[in-house]
């Protein structure tokens, strides 16, 4: 083999080990090993972000103490979108490489993403109330999250409605991909739709204000905490899904053996 071919083969072997973890047994082994540390790390980072953000940040101009809400609102909103993105990537991997762990990971991530979306909506509304005097405003960002919430619901409903696990995995994967296109399109549509009403009165702080270290560092920690929380939850839920899938397969075998 030529030197170039050897190096290519080596590079491809180095990358291919990732697909080894796609094997359900290997995933169970790996996740089982890592989970306790993951949980510990999550509690640590999440707790730090929470405590720091709540107790040790000063009041801000225009926002007063309500600026503290960014430590739950921003990370949850960010993760709500990241979770959907992860579901789409996992769906594509499932459609192309048929790794069951991928499909089940997408299914596992959905409830977590949904809860993040709900938190983003609730904290957004709670923040908006003192700011705008109304419990809900069709602010483009909040509205987009409401639509995202509906997409999450539809995705989970489709998984629940279909009996055959592989068919469900396939159809929900297609839905996630097509849904993403429409979700992005909706973002633009909603921005366009709301131009007349709340010009500029968007809920999140401007990037300029975020630069202040005293707010920024705990925010990064809080985001890290939410991210770790997401990974931990997806690991736990995927493990449960893998077990349930095996149960389903064995039950079918039992039923056929009895017949």
């Amino acid at each position: 083999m030529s030197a170039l071919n050897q190096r290519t083969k080596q590079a491809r072997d180095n990358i291919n080990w990732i697909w080894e973890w796609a094997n359900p047994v290997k995933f169970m082994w790996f996740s089982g090993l890592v989970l306790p540390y993951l949980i510990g790390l999550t509690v640590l980072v999440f707790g730090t972000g929470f405590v720091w953000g709540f107790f040790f940040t000063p009041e801000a101009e225009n926002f007063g103490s309500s600026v503290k809400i960014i430590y739950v609102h921003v990370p949850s909103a960010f993760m709500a979108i990241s979770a959907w993105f992860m579901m789409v990537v996992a769906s594509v991997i499932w459609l192309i490489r048929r790794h069951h762990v991928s499909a089940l990971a997408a299914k596992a991530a959905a409830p977590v993403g949904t809860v993040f979306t709900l938190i983003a909506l609730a904290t957004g509304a709670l923040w908006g109330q003192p700011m705008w005097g109304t419990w809900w405003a069709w602010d483009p960002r909040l509205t987009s999250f409401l639509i995202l919430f509906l997409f999450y619901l539809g995705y989970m409903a489709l998984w629940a409605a279909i009996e055959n696990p592989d068919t469900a995995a396939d159809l929900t994967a297609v839905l996630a991909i097509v849904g993403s296109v429409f979700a992005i399109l909706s973002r633009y549509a909603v921005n366009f739709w709301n131009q007349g009403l709340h010009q500029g009165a968007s809920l999140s702080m401007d990037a300029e204000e975020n630069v202040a270290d005293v707010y920024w560092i705990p925010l990064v920690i809080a985001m890290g905490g939410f991210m770790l929380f997401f990974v931990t939850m997806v690991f736990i839920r995927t493990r449960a899904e893998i077990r349930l899938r095996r149960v389903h397969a064995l039950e079918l075998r039992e039923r056929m053996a009895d017949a």
Partner: protein
Amino acid sequence: MPELGKYAGAVLGSWAITLGLLVLLIALTWVQARAAKRKHDEIEARRQAGQRAAEKKR
């Protein structure tokens, strides 16, 4: 408790809802994961018992 002034309701409410929902999710997940593990171990035990019985017959 830091001075929250007029935004106390909003801040405390946000954090309460966040923690509340996350705890709900954790509880739900834990229950589901435990049920999955239980079902899995039961059916695995049945399968292995069945296999052992089949081995004995041979």
